[in-house]
């Protein structure tokens, strides 16, 4: 590993890890690693004001990927969230069509950016050179684009990754706090922390 890369990873860990715990506060956003808004969601700053908690996206989702947050989530109660490792988003794009307020913008599969998948090269069993696993690559809806294999090891291309979380759900490696060897980092959060991972 290059020094530069190591530092980057170190930085990202410092910024990302604390937020994974902060999903229960009254005001704090539930969006965190693998906790994602549905496709086409407006930025988290405006989401609360725009979403009327009608639950249509939750209702229309054929895979039950979207859950409606309950009272524990304070001001975020009633808003939709995807728990990527439990049921990821299959990108059927039904939710964006039914959203009455435009909180979920009408976008296509390819345009979806719920976050970006990040492979943790320390925990990924393939990167560690211990087994040949390519589950994330196999389940990726944009195989070869969003996730490709570099010498059989998975690499994410942020240009194409939609953050759907299928890879997170599929990843056979689970470690601390339910995190996987590949996790989706919500875009707005990454922008607020370290640029350009």
């Amino acid at each position: 590993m290059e020094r530069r890369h190591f530092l980057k990873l170190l930085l990202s860990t410092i910024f990302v890890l604390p937020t994974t715990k902060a999903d229960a506060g009254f005001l704090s956003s539930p969006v965190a690693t693998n906790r994602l808004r549905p496709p086409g969601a407006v930025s988290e700053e405006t989401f609360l004001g725009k979403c009327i908690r009608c639950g249509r996206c939750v209702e229309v989702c054929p895979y039950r990927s979207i859950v409606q947050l309950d009272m524990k989530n304070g001001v975020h109660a009633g808003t939709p969230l995807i728990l990527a490792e439990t049921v990821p988003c299959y990108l059927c794009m039904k939710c964006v069509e039914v959203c009455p307020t435009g909180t979920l913008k009408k976008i296509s599969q390819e345009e979806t950016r719920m976050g970006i998948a990040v492979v943790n090269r320390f925990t990924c069993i393939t990167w560690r050179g211990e087994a040949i696993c390519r589950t994330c690559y196999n389940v990726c809806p944009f195989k070869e684009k969003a996730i490709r294999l570099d010498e059989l090891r998975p690499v994410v291309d942020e240009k194409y990754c939609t953050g759907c979380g299928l890879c997170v759900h599929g990843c056979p490696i689970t470690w601390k706090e339910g995190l996987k060897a590949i996790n989706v980092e919500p875009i707005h959060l990454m922008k607020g922390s370290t640029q350009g991972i």
Partner: protein
Amino acid sequence: MSITRREFLKRTAALTAASYVGMNLPFSLEGESHAADADKWVKGVCRFCGTGCRVELGLKNGKAVALRGVADSRTNLGYVCMKGMLFYKIIGHPDRFTKPLYRAKKDQPFKTITWDEALDIAAKEFANAVKTSGNDSVAYYGSGQALTEETYLFQKVMRAGLQTNNVEGNPRLCMASAVGGYLTSFGADEPIGSYSNIEKASCFFIIGSNMAEAHPVVFRRVMRRKLDNPNSVKVINVDPRISPTSRIADLHLQFKPGTDLALMNAMANVIIEEKLYDENFINNYCVFKAVEDDKPKGVDFEAYKKFVAEYTPEKAAQLCGGNITPENIRKAARMFAKSPGTMSMWCMGINQRLRGVWANNLINNLHMITGQLCKPGADSLSLTGQPNACGGVREGGGLCHILPGHRPVAKDKLRNQVEEIWGVPQGRIPPKPGLHTIAMFSAVNEGKIKAIWIHCTSPAQSLPNADHYRKGLRRDDVFVVCTDIFPTKTTELANLILPAAFHFEKTGVYGCTERRSQITPKAVNPPGEAKPEVWMVREWALKLSKELNDPVIKKSVEPFIGLEEGFALSKAIWDEYTQKLTKGRDNDLTGATYDVLLKMADGVQWPAPTTEFALKGGTERKFVKGIDPLADKLSQDDKPYQFYGPAHEDRKLYIWLRPYNGAAEEPDAEYPYYLSTGRIIDHWHTTSMTGRIPEIMRANPYSYVEINPKDAAKLGIKPGDMVEVESRRGKVVMPAKVIEGPIEGMVFAYWHDMDEERMINKVCKDAFDPGSKEPEFKISACRVKRVSGPKQLKPYIVTM
């Protein structure tokens, strides 16, 4: 696998740096197999594909807790795939059968019985069938996943005891065409070379195999070779589908399914036209054969030249369609012929075909005319699907037409030899081969087979046109015994379920693709009352002997009476098989005793006639003097290669004139799409095992169908939509994956699903190769239509 020093230093540095800033990097991972602090590691071989990865099972307080690759093994070099790494989870799974289960009629619920009752019932039912309907009314259907000792003992009892050759196994569904190809081309079954050629090869011709998914650990070696030598090593992938394997290819030939025979004849045409053939090799070792009036006939080189002259690259390109151009064919042929060492690898895309043997012959032809055989890096290597299809079934006599040690049943001399070794009266083994798989299950359908023992496989799900053959298994006048570890689609149709010991719960040998035999010793106790199959067969045979009042049945298991079933019994069976039946045969395993196998990091490749030779690893390349001891021993002249294979008495390699032949069922107006089926890396076959590993099932909960984006647009199918795939035999409804994978006009479905709605083998065609009797799983005609939008589906595994 061990880490390199450099890697270790890096990680240590990272850890130290992390500890300075007061943060722990997650090196000790929870819920992860290899991190478990096992107190003992037992070496064995992987339970899944035919690669033959050497693995170690980690035990903690006698319980299986982890699995890892063995770094000094010559097959996997320490690597394993995810399903391999997780199969230890099956060992203690709560769904395991722990007691014998029985029901008289198939609509009744099962009830638990004792072993004594179970074996009594099995013996009575088989004895009754023999008494009332003759010896050929009983059958054994085994598996390429059964241990060699199991297959050997089963077939011995069936043949010498019950006097029937109705001994078959699922390798008929995957390997039979490769056997036919090797026997007719080289006169000897199984590959000449080894995986070790991969590191010496400079051209790979991968046809009809998605080895990146199906043999990932071998593929890693091919990929490594290519990436280390990006310019000097060329990879040609021939497949109607763009697969993960095609991604490393320099040249991907994508053609209409079933046209590869024309393609390979056209490559031979180019090789001959451009004088790229190896005249010396042909003159020294090869003869040409054609078929006239159903009989093989010798022809000369000129006749062969004339034959392939018909297959001009232009004509073939037109036939093959897809991206095939005359220039592509020429390019492929030149790469193949000019490289210092060309290695072909193929699997089900070639074998599971109406003319699978011919397709195998044509690959072998390319190697023979270019002399790409027996030299470093040159081999025509058929990849095996199952871990013991080669070792147990092809060598151990697990098919209806062969006896142990590559002896055809029909050859009187060899059959009598086996009778003599077994000490049974001459004429005890019937001279006529038994029923091959499709014929066997047709006979079940017709009620001609009254009792069938299905061992370690699930034909109710894996046979093509599955619905048709399940009818017979459902009949109440057909007694079905299943030996298995988990409920399957077949145990659903059984009368008697015998709980079997799993891998590492019994001792036995697996023989992988490259003629390599590896032992897996018992490391843990089977759950409940589950028993090793060798014990079941022995006890059953003793009861059968009483029922039928026939001492010869007892005689067939006599050497094994009273032996402890975990190790000693298997050892005695292996000793009889190797010392008596393989001695002097081309698959000589005399040197590969349990003692030797237990010492080896990676097993022994036959021929291995002596212990000293076996301890060196055996024969890396057959037929080559100085490498293969049999080539030296059986040498008849001063040529460096001696093709002593038992099927060709003239010691020649045969170059066959095999014409182009299409599939049994081509698309038409009613069923306009080609349907092909295949595998995914994480699942194993019917999912009865991998479906019970949560990590694997979560990522691959159900099968789906891949559709080319152009076809999807035509059919109005969007990703994730539910689509119906229907053929003349049945239909399934599964989600669609729209992907630039299958060629336009073809859909590709995965067969890892037990749900009735999604069992693709109900749709596949059961036409079979007239030579190898292997069904054409890979090509049939279907129609495809959108049923609904995306739907959440429930993963399904058969439970009791």
